[in-house]
């Protein structure tokens, strides 16, 4: 376990961009990570599951439905604080937090309702979401534990230094004479290639598990855009009524997040678990889905 996990939770949220200097490598790492935002602050915990586990253990609870309901408010508060501190969230990082926050809210709300039987598809969906969240959280916890084991092993092993000495001169002298055929120009060309910034592999969003499905967030965004631009607010339920698979539902949800980020739609929800109403707020049809391509297209 690193020192950072020992940092009291209360302090974590207050760490801001000053972390840039001493932030762990991956936070300050690539040039694109320079963006002020979520990732830098994420350096203090390693993701929504880590935060959730941190909150649960703070209350000395086991991972149960009760625990999740108990820590929901804190989780949401934590995200709010980050939001206040931050300028912009990187969507792919923030969306995980939002998805989990939404699931937690659902679970908490469900617990507040009178205990009832499973009545309709929504209840089943809620149960599935709960199971999925538990499963993912427990899986993450397992990996977090083995990561601690790896850390301990790596540290222990680092105390052994391998013998790695330069080749004794008489052996080095026996090496075959180097064949060198490069002219300075050819060598320079080689350097050009080697120094050219490599085009980073496309950023993936966690959709690989969907087995190369043809569903595109971009297409779904266009579709939703067209429907909403008719002028009438629609509920999310209505927007996904014709979705032929869960995948399409997910894609539409992601598309809505994108549209919301672009500030062309507004959400309205009157009651917990109530219908989510979506309204088009952009003037006319100015919005274009063109920029969505890079972020969600996964094919190389």
């Amino acid at each position, binding site marked *: 376990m690193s020192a950072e996990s020992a940092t009291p939770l209360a302090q974590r949220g207050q760490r801001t961009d000053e972390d840039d200097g001493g932030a762990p490598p*991956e936070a300050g790492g690539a040039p694109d990570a320079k963006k002020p935002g979520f990732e830098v602050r994420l350096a203090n915990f390693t993701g929504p599951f880590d935060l959730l586990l941190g909150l649960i253990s703070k209350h000395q609870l086991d991972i149960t439905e009760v625990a999740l309901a108990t820590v929901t408010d804190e989780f949401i508060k934590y995200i709010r604080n980050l939001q206040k501190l931050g300028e912009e969230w990187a969507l792919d990082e923030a969306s995980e937090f939002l998805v989990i926050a939404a699931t937690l809210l659902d679970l908490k709300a469900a617990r507040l309702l009178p205990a009832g039987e499973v009545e309709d598809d929504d209840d089943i969906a809620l149960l599935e979401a709960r199971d*999925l969240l538990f499963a993912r959280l427990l899986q993450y916890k397992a990996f977090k534990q083995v990561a601690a084991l790896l850390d301990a092993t790596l540290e222990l092993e680092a105390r052994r230094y391998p013998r790695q000495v330069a*080749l004794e001169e008489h052996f080095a002298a026996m090496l075959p004479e180097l064949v060198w055929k490069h002219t300075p120009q050819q060598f320079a060309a080689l350097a050009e290639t080697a120094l050219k910034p490599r085009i980073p592999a496309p950023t993936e969003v966690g959709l690989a*598990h969907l*087995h190369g499905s043809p569903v595109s967030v971009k297409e779904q965004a266009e579709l939703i855009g067209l429907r909403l631009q008719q002028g009438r607010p629609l509920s999310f339920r209505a927007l996904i009524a014709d979705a032929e698979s869960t995948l399409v539902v997910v894609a539409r949800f992601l598309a809505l997040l994108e549209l919301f980020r672009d500030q062309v739609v507004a959400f309205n929800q009157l009651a917990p678990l109530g219908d989510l109403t979506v309204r088009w707020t952009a003037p006319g049809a100015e919005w274009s889905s063109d920029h969505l391509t890079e972020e969600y297209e996964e094919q190389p």
Partner: protein
Amino acid sequence: MTKPGQEPSSEDTASGGTDVTALPGGARAALEAVLMVLDQPASATDLAAGLNLTVAAVEELLLELQREYDGYTVKAPDMEIASNAGFTSSPRGFELRNVAGGWRIYSRAEFADVVGAFVLEGQTARLTQAALETLAVIAYRQPVSRARVSAIRGVNVDSVVRTLTQRGLIEDSGTDPESGAVLYCTTSYFLERMGIGSVAELPQLSPHLPGLEGIEEFYDAGRM
């Protein structure tokens, strides 16, 4: 130093005719001499080929040296006096280890502080929590795409994966035929750093997944 590919019987090398057993110290010392110039672990097969010995003989010698360095009874033809006396020496300052599929000499862990003062390089920067978690997921799920790792960790792992690649702990191991996503594996350098022979020696993951023995199938079924 690269591994010789020839068979122990081949005669077209400089050592082809050398009978190492005739040299002072014999095959044991010859093996030791070769171990001295390695800059990466060498397998018993490679060592046997270079020494013109059988793999079985080399394996026996390696174990003998390992025990000897650890301070157990010395056993060698001309050391019978010592051996018969049940004489146990104190451990040497170094040890012979079998890691990442090969043998290599390491300074003994007890002396890390002293040795560390001399070896400025080789000091390893500690991995961050995020890097460790990502490394763990890749180690247990390899070959695995970044998307799958992020799904498990709940965050984007692109820059962490880049760091781990630069550090030589993981590598690109082709693409997924279905999705075309780049798949990552751990490297033999990772095994070296972990001091293990293969990823199969990593601690079991299942005890950390109480009551969720079926979780793997659950995920592999494409749900996640």
